[in-house]
């Protein structure tokens, strides 16, 4: 198996239509269960520009998954508007692919790796020859060309998640949603997969929304980080990440700017846990706009 980082950069995976914008306006979601209705998301408004990679962080139980399921069209919003490329999201929209946290459960265990990647393409009406091409290319891009005929459950967790990523990429989406995709893989695999996501994102020019509870991961991956409050959720801050386009697990994570952002977002999340619901109410010991401490 080749490491995804070794994949030739000029390897052309898909002729890509590029990314589409995502707009979320006053999203509210209330779960009307058997008992008291639970307000998971209070009022979320943000926009993701075409081709942008945005990470969403927040304390656990902050409604991150709710937000993502609403974006994916899997869950109807209680109120508010969601739009993909200008058209409202009422059900799972075409041009959107999803990678879920539960890699072991999102792949069809009765299909081989290649069949798992191919099934959505079949449904989409992609011609057979082109399907074979896409399956082979995307599996090669995630470094899994040699296990195409295996069943998913014969692979390790990290490899299974790569299959899910290959399936999403082969689908040629304009928007890729990822819900804590690496929460259940080991730390080393996680670094590899993070780089894989950055590599694919840059190559394809698609819009990516990446939900995570890991602050370092959010900053390392994102061009922007949306910090959410605790439930009922609002956006606490929309943090720009000025770390440049090329990121490296060692250098970027050792960067002073990375450390500053990390401290800032960490503090925000801590404040969010204590129930702070707006930036004005937050007591930050390291203000966001402060210059990096000298000597750092």
């Amino acid at each position, binding site marked *: 198996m080749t490491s995804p980082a070794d994949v030739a950069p000029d390897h052309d995976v898909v002729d890509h239509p590029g990314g589409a914008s995502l707009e979320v306006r006053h999203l509210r979601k209330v779960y009307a269960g058997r008992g008291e209705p639970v307000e998971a998301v209070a009022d979320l408004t943000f926009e993701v520009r075409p081709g942008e990679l945005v990470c969403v962080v927040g304390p656990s139980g902050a409604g991150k998954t709710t937000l993502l*399921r609403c974006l*994916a*069209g*899997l869950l109807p919003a209680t109120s508010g508007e969601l739009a993909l490329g200008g058209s409202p999201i009422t*059900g*799972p929209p*075409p041009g*959107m*692919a*999803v990678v*879920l946290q*539960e890699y072991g*459960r*999102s*792949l*069809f*265990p*009765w*299909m081989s790796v290649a069949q798992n990647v191919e*099934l*959505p393409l*079949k*449904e*989409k009406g992609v011609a057979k020859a082109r399907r074979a091409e896409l399956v082979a290319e995307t599996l090669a891009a995630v470094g899994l060309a040699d296990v195409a005929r295996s*069943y998913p*459950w*014969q692979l*390790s*967790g990290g490899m299974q998640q790569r299959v899910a990523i290959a*399936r999403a990429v082969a*689908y040629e989406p304009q928007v890729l949603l990822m819900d804590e995709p690496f929460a259940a893989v080991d730390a080393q695999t996680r670094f590899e997969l993070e780089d894989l996501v950055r590599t694919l994102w840059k190559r394809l020019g698609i819009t990516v929304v990446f939900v995570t509870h890991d602050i370092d991961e959010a900053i390392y991956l994102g061009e922007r980080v949306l910090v959410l409050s605790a439930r009922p959720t609002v956006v606490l801050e929309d943090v720009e990440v000025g770390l440049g386009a090329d990121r490296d697990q060692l250098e970027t994570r050792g960067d002073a700017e990375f450390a500053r952002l990390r401290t800032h977002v960490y503090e925000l999340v801590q404040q969010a846990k204590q129930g702070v619901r707006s930036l004005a109410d937050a007591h930050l010991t390291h203000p966001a706009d402060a210059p990096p401490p000298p000597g750092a």
Partner: protein
Amino acid sequence: MSTLRRVARSVLLTLGLPVAILTVWWVASAGSTSFYSPPLAEIVGTSRETWFSAPLAESRLAVDVVPSVLRLLAGYAVALVVGVALGVAVGSSRALRAFLEPVLEFFRAIPPPVLVPVLMLFFGIGDTMKIVVIAIGCVWPVLLNTVEGVRGLDPVLRDTARAYRLGRVATLRHLVLRGASPQIVTGARQALSIGIILMVISEMFAAKDGLGFSIVQFQRSFAIPEMWSGVLLLGVVGVLLSLVFRAVTDAVLRWYLGYRQSQHGGA
């Protein structure tokens, strides 16, 4: 070499007990003078002329056994189709489940053999009645297991199918039926044994041919060795059917064994 040994071992394990039982029966009954339990040697001896007499097309095998098995297969097939179709519908809809459950529980509680006299009134004593009896008896395990299988489908897989916009047909084919297939097979296995029982019972009330009919006829005419040979033949038919069943389901569920191991093995 070792493959050969493994095959020999599995053959020995599979056939060991049946051979032992037959041997004991053979030896213990060898000197039997009881009219009702004749020596096994006599039972086996009479089997040939009873069931496989020439010409084969007029033998009891063709005239009685084959029609019985065909009725069984027909009723079983109807039960599979109806059970899986209804099971998928009931398993997919909570409302339908709540609506149908009391009625299903009622019908399930009725032992199918008591329906034979009732069905005879509607369908006569011909093939239709017997096929209907077999189908009614077999449908329950298939139906109930399919419902469980469909209800037990992983919601993450359902979300995945929706997110990738799989249509109704593709979802049914690639997700629902495949995902529920382990439970469907369990139901189908139970249904097969019920089907064999009902195949015989449906012929015991009223019939003009059939394996069960023959056995009862032999018993009533005191042809005791022939009756015993019929019982043995019935057992053989059952074993053959379950072998075919195993071969088919092993192919369908090839993924399942490895999947379960990977889940329980604690990856």
